[in-house]
């Protein structure tokens, strides 16, 4: 079988297809076209909001740790939450830069590369946000108690902070072990792949590798 022999079959398939599809493209509803045009817009509009929230939190926590230089646990807790707020800003800026580069009328390899990069960023951001949430618990506890009651929890009940920190580290460790297990278990990997609907890290990496391989001469 030669590739050029397939052309004849392709033409035949094309004729069958043209006859069998009754869909009239001119009958596309306005609703559907409007929805397609606006699909990436909400995602893009959320990013300035995230930047504003991140900026407000960064200023708030910076002021907090500067005001608590005399207590190292409060200072470190404030610094940690300050760093997370900066992370929120960086995440939104990166996502914005990746979204604005996506242009469906650009050459296929280029747009698919940008889409794959956005997908990879979203999955990584999702995973890291869980780590950040767990790790921020002891800091939130310290900072929250200080802000609500003006009391220093580290002096009153240091064990409460330590146990929360240990619990958070255990949760992160367990998540990491689960991730490692998933990577080495084809069944679990497939289940996770299916759960993310093709949006797993492995899927994003495979798509990027496929694109790079195709673009290479």
């Amino acid at each position, binding site marked *: 079988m030669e590739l050029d022999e397939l052309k004849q079959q392709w033409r035949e398939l094309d004729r069958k297809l043209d006859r069998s599809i009754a869909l009239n493209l001119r009958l596309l509803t306005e609703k559907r076209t409007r929805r397609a045009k606006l699909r990436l817009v909400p995602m893009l509009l959320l990013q300035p909001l995230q930047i504003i929230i991140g900026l407000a939190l960064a200023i708030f926590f910076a002021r907090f740790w500067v005001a608590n230089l005399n207590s190292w646990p409060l200072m470190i807790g404030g610094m940690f939450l300050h760093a997370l707020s900066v992370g929120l800003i960086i995440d939104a800026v990166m996502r914005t830069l990746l979204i604005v580069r996506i242009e469906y009328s650009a050459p*296929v*390899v280029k747009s698919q590369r940008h889409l794959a990069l956005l997908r990879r960023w979203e999955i990584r951001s999702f995973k890291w946000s869980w780590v950040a949430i767990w790790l921020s618990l002891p800091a939130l506890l310290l900072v929250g108690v200080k802000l609500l009651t003006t009391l220093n929890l580290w002096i009153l009940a240091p064990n409460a902070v330590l146990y929360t920190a240990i619990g958070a580290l255990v949760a992160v460790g367990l998540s990491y072990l689960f991730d490692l297990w998933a990577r080495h278990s084809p069944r679990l990997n497939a289940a996770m792949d299916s759960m993310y609907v093709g949006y797993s890290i492995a899927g994003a990496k495979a798509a990027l590798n496929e694109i790079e391989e195709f673009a290479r001469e």
Partner: protein
Amino acid sequence: MNVVAISDASRVQFSSLLEEHRRMVFKVANTYARAADREDLAQEIAAHLWGAFPDYDSSRPFSTWLYRIALNVGISHLRSRSARERQTVPLELELHEAADPQAREPDADEAPRLLEQFITQLDALNRALLLLYLDERSYREIAEILGISETNVSTKINRLKERVRRFGETHGAR
């Protein structure tokens, strides 16, 4: 992502261009979607085309512009389906009844079935390349649509030819 209002004249122009090139939309939908999703994908492509139409540069070929958008939407559609689903529900099973090639008598349906089987086992970008080649696009236009060099197009077509030959041998095609 142009969200400005499109004039009636543009709408008429778009409808006419789309009608003229509708087969291209269906070919891409046929290449990247299962039978059940094909109509949806065709509409999805048309909706993307309509959304991007205000940015279309009429001094450039409409077919190149259409193919880029249609293939991007088609590939995204294919990638958004889970890897598991892709492995267990091949496209051709819904186009033609799956059957053991060894047990079948060669008939008129054999060649299109082989073509569809061959398309299904290709990755998303090679499917695009094959579709454009079978549609008799020039190497230059294929390069422009895909965003790779003409030399690369030529190299990859040669590899596809080799793959078709091997596929034919293993699937008993004459």
